């Protein structure tokens, strides 16, 4: 089970004064009743829980700035929270922390279709950003499966991706500028409407920094004209390895579909039972979507069909209508919900070179047998971003520990084959202790020095990303702080 640092006793002892000061700073926005703070004790990784000292729900950059400077002054840790859909425990609090939640900051501040940008408050949900420009024929490209609920601030925190990022890139490729509040309350602007601010690319540093460098309150995002059309195909195979090999071949051939999604048998079966999408009962399937004008679509699909034929697919299902397209996507979109019916799941997120897919899938299968826990795979295969879901029973003692151990083995495997611990969900607490598998002490030291610059007292989301023993000296250096065990 994941360790969290001992809460700062000096903060806990000043609890009432801190809460009173928060109330003064932003009236009507502070939650501190233990019956209520518990609701904020976890995100979508509900296995890890810890209720915060208090939660504050500001409405403006100015309010965030006041809160931050106050917490800085009192030496109180802060955990930023968007919609709390992180699968890595990124927005899970610590007992001595104030959660600053952005859910009330949902305004659209500016829409400039001519300049292809939109400026929003960071609590606005991903899908409602597209919703705001839909009427003008535009959309915001990064599309995490959680896009209905997750917030732009959280997307920036985790540098989130989605099915269509194969073509359009992830959050960092679609982010032009942010307004960010530093831990001491200073408000900074990074990037610019044209994306090319001078000097160091600090915006690039902030995107994916998991709420450790500052709280993003406003974001300027790239919007794109909606494509004239899109069409998916479903390709079914009798082995996961062959499906993996087909993905590698499509990428090698230089075709650029907008999405290549992969599902294996356990996932297909669960999905069928739950959503009845009419998928074939096969070992693995790919959903490949291409975009463009009708002739462009036809041309790309012909190429994909040729490549797929080389791998003896058991079925190649082209969509002939809106409704058929919807049905092809239906199962994929219901996959997480369906998997929830099998039991509790941990959703992993590792990235591997596409060419290693067949090998890694075979090894995951072996590991799954060794641990006696089933693993279902559903992921963005085009960019090698895997999401093995480990099914277990959270109500059976010991099951979660085994699931975690299996998860760690799978992620180590990703690193071994030249991949990376996370594709889009971030490190959070979930992968914190595995960072040493990927980075040398010198690498980690360099990363922590970046945090030193933005947050010298290590108050912002400090128990995440870096293994506790690695970050201990910095976290413990806080003035007034009692040392923790790690």
């Amino acid at each position, binding site marked *: 089970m994941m360790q969290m640092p001992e809460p700062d006793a000096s903060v806990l002892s000043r609890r009432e004064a801190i809460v009173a000061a928060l109330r003064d700073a932003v009236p009507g926005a502070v939650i501190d*009743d233990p019956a209520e703070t518990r609701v904020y004790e976890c995100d979508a990784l509900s296995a890890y829980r810890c209720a915060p000292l208090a939660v504050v729900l500001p409405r403006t950059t100015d309010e965030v700035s006041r809160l931050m400077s106050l917490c800085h002054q009192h030496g109180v840790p802060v955990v930023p929270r968007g919609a709390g859909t992180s699968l890595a425990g990124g927005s899970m609090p610590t007992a001595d922390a104030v959660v600053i939640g952005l859910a009330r900051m949902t305004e659209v501040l500016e829409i400039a279709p001519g300049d292809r940008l939109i400026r929003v408050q960071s609590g606005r949900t991903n899908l409602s950003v597209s919703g705001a420009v839909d009427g003008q024929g535009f959309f915001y490209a990064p599309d995490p499966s959680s896009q209905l609920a997750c917030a732009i601030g959280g997307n920036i925190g985790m540098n989130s991706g989605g099915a269509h990022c194969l073509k359009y890139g992830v959050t960092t490729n679609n982010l032009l500028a942010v307004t960010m509040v530093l831990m001491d309350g200073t408000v900074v602007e990074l990037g610019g409407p044209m994306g090319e601010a001078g000097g160091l690319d600090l915006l690039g540093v902030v995107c994916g920094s998991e709420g450790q460098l500052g709280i993003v309150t406003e974001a300027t995002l790239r919007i794109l004209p909606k494509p004239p059309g899109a069409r998916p195909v479903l390709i079914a195979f009798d082995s996961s390895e062959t499906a993996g090999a087909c993905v590698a071949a499509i990428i090698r051939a230089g075709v650029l579909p907008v999405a290549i999604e992969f599902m294996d048998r356990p996932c297909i079966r669960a999905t069928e039972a739950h959503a009845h999408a009419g998928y074939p009962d096969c070992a693995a399937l790919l959903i490949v979507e291409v975009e463009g004008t009708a002739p462009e679509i036809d041309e790309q699909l012909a190429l994909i069909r040729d490549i797929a034929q080389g791998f003896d697919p058991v079925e190649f299902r082209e969509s002939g209508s809106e409704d058929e397209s919807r049905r092809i996507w239906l199962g994929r979109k219901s996959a997480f919900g369906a998997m929830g019916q099998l039991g509790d799941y941990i959703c992993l997120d590792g990235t591997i070179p596409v060419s290693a897919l067949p090998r890694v899938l075979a090894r995951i299968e072996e590991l799954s047998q060794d641990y006696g826990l089933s693993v279902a795979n559903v992921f963005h295969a085009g960019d090698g971003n895997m999401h093995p879901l480990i099914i277990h029973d959270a109500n059976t003692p010991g099951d979660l520990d085994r699931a975690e151990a299996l998860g760690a083995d799978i992620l180590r495997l990703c690193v071994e084959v030249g991949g990376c611990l996370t594709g889009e969900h971030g490190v959070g607490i979930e992968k914190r202790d595995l960072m040493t598998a990927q980075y040398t002490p010198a690498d980690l030291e360099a990363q922590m020095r970046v945090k030193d610059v933005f947050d010298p007292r290590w108050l912002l989301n400090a128990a995440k990303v870096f293994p506790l023993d690695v970050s201990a000296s910095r976290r413990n250096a806080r003035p007034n702080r009692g040392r923790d065990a790690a």
Partner: protein
Amino acid sequence: MQTNFTPEQLKDPATARSNQILRTCVHCGFCTATCPTYQVLGDELDSPRGRIYLIKDMLEAGRPADEKTVKHIDRCLSCLACMTTCPSGVHYMHLVDHARAHIEATYRRPWRDRALRWLLKQVIPHPGRFRLALAGAKLARPFARLMPDARLRAMLAMAPKTIPPVSRNDDGQTFPAIGERRARVALMIGCAQRALNTEINDATIRLLRRAGCEVVIPEKFGCCGALTLHMGQQDDAKTRARDSIARLLAAERDGALDAIIINTSGCGTTVKDYGHLFENDDIAAEAARVSGLTRDVTEFLEGLGLPDRARTEGQGARVAYHSACSLQHGQQIKSAPGTLLTRAGFRIVEPADPHLCCGSAGTYNLLQPELSSELKRRKVATLEATSPQIIAAGNIGCMMQIGGATDVPVVHTVQLLDWATGGPRPDGLGAIA
């Protein structure tokens, strides 16, 4: 999600059911995005995921409900948008019903709250008393400013300007089909609806008869139980539901029913769930039969077909269709009303954010006037943005709520369908076509 009930706790069937529901929730947060109260308040405590967490905590600890938990559960509209959104099939309705029963059993509300709830329960489900109260409210309206409680003021404001005379059509009787008889149905005439608007039942009867239905009006029909069920008063609700089941099935003595028709979708959601409510009771089979037969009037007519169109006026009128939560989320009936209205010759427009509740939600507008008016304001703004000539809805509560805040005439879907197929022009349509 992991849960923490003792084997002892799980022996209670209601707790076992709640455990099962909680176990299917993966805490993904998708449901927050479509919850009306979360949209307005921006606090996870007032979102489905937050409420589920509060309920889990309360039930696991087996402790009496606390004030904060009650506050956030009370704010829930039971609109069930969260059930439509949830990818994991979490049955929030059964969970929140259990939570409300637990609150009712373990929490002592402040006296004003208790008095108000008692009053609502004594009045609304009894059409005679409700009529009296509405007349009284009309007289009292000039004194509204003296009322100490915003909720009492809301009650006064809600009373309609005119109270219709009792409709003799609502008495127990059987109306023969017009033309060839194609089905035999019982009509649930509603309780509050009968006092507020008699046109809806009259139009439904005319329409069904013209469509070839023999229509049975059950003898001395009361309340379906939805009102007190949503207040957590399960025993009271079940007494009323039991009575309704008996009266509905009595209609089968003279011949089997093909359907039980409901034109107040709020009741429809509850009646369709009788099977669950009485799962462990002596009348389980009867309850399941009633649930199985129950259809919303539009759901039924979509299958049976509309009578021929007989009218030329009003054709092409621009109708903004407001989808009642109990229809679109509670019963998952989304397209039938629009399809029928289009077939009947109207031009249907849908407002933005059609999934959001108008804030009426049974007695919610009386118990939570502030949130309710904010939701009303938003709903009316999106409806008016479609520049409609008429607004149609399938639930009396929504009609009252929206009608109180717009000059556009608001009618029940069946009134338009009746008009288009030979019935009278609905009242209040003014100069349209």
